[in-house]
């Protein structure tokens, strides 16, 4: 089974196992990865599941809808490879994925 890595702002790493039919946000929640608040439970409404995807993986994380894009543009710690974790559908193609967590969610 595949694995993914979340790296907290302070460098703490969390490896999680890929489970089918779950978003990246849900993977973080189910594995108690701190630093992803996900206040809206994945409805693309809160912007508190911000992650910065490792550059080499960014292209594999799927399309960004306009709502997500607008929220990301306003995120203080936004980067060119920022995503909302609830909008990333995890498949085996993401085996090895590395994402970084911002210092704060807003």
């Amino acid at each position, binding site marked *: 089974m595949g694995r993914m890595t979340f790296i907290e702002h302070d460098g703490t790493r969390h490896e999680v196992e890929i489970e089918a*039919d779950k978003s990246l946000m849900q993977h973080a*929640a*189910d594995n*108690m990865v*701190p630093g992803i608040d996900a*206040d*809206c*439970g994945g*409805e*693309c*409404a*809160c*912007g508190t599941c911000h992650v910065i995807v490792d550059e080499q993986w960014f292209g594999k994380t799927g399309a960004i809808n306009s*709502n997500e894009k*607008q*929220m990301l*543009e*306003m*995120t*203080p710690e936004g980067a060119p490879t920022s995503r909302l974790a609830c909008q990333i559908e995890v498949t085996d193609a993401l085996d090895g994925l590395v994402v970084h967590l911002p210092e704060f969610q*807003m």
Partner: protein
Amino acid sequence: MSHSPSQSDENQVCVIIGASHAAAQLATSLRQQGWSGPIRMIGDEGGLPYQRPPLSKAFLCGEKDADSLIIRPSAFYEKHEIEFIPGRVTAIDRVAKTLTLADGSEQHYDKLALCTGTRVIRLPIQGANLGGVHYLRTLADVEGIRRELPDSGRVVIIGGGYIGLETAASLRKQGIDVVVLEMAERVLQRVTAPEVSAFYQRMHSEAGVTIETGTMVAAFEGEERVERVVCADGRFYPADMVIVGIGVRPNSELADAAGLEIDNGIVVDEYCQTQDPDIVAAGDCANQWDPRSGQRRRLESVPNAVEQAKTAAATLCGEKIPQISLPWFWSDQYDLKLQMAGLNQGYDQVVIRGTADSGCSFAAFYFQQGQLIAADCINRAPEFMLAKKLLSQKQTADMTRLADEAIPVKQLMAELTTSS
């Protein structure tokens, strides 16, 4: 993070009454904060905590199934040794520290968390018990609605609040004829400015939903199933189904009977503590003291339930962190995403960015004596993020500049970051 309970006893039992948004977060936060004793969550809906918001949105539209609503899978609770007990608590004995369940069994607790939420207000009118009259609060409610939903025909919705309007949009999208009857002079009257109400009335009427405001419902008529909704002024509306969404009441009877203070919900301080040092309350059922406004408030939203649950868990672990997070809420209707930040009660001025009377995107900023207190943002995620930032930093904004669309939100945000 690894803070252990102040009492050294590692086997202290924490029982959570209720198994929904607040309970799921509270149990998780307890473990995160180092609670090592048993955690038991007792819920009367039969299953594990699930997401309620999609009930009137994607789930009602048939775009999501029940399994996908679950907040966390059973494996999660097993792994973290959080036990779910299906059942209904009928009494709390605060002296013996035991709970009685409906089946007669008892549960001991050392610490107790009340996450009992709210229940719908029923319409006490003639015909209220006819078939086809529904309420919308639980998964079982919506499964019942979906089973009976007519392929065509007409659904009459009583109540033009968020749940009524979301339900109207979800049904209309499926080609059903929808009429919304609202007692007040405008929809969303209790929660938004007239501009926002008028906007939603326009969007619904463009989608083909009939909205009748200032309309008091007097009776449901029919043989075994509802066939007609009769109004106080004599008008009537044929109906194949009725869905009532006129508000909720806190489930505070259990706490009341146990002698805890009740006032529009279970009274708690900023740490989610009741008067009993061993009992906390969180979520829709809690009426919390807000030191910043000097008032109590009982909110009905997922973010509030989650934030209070985190605070309550910290309190139970002996770490007192006051809850001062910014209230926010969202609502999805058609392709409209409404995101609200702050609380607008007591506003004296509204500033609109964009146009509310045409198109489908604008933001309404609420001010009280020149201070920004809240914002409703429709398909305006950038404005929502700006409002969250302004409000959480207790900053206000220049009204003319906010209303001026020539100034990009990004620029307003950048000015803020540098000036703070």
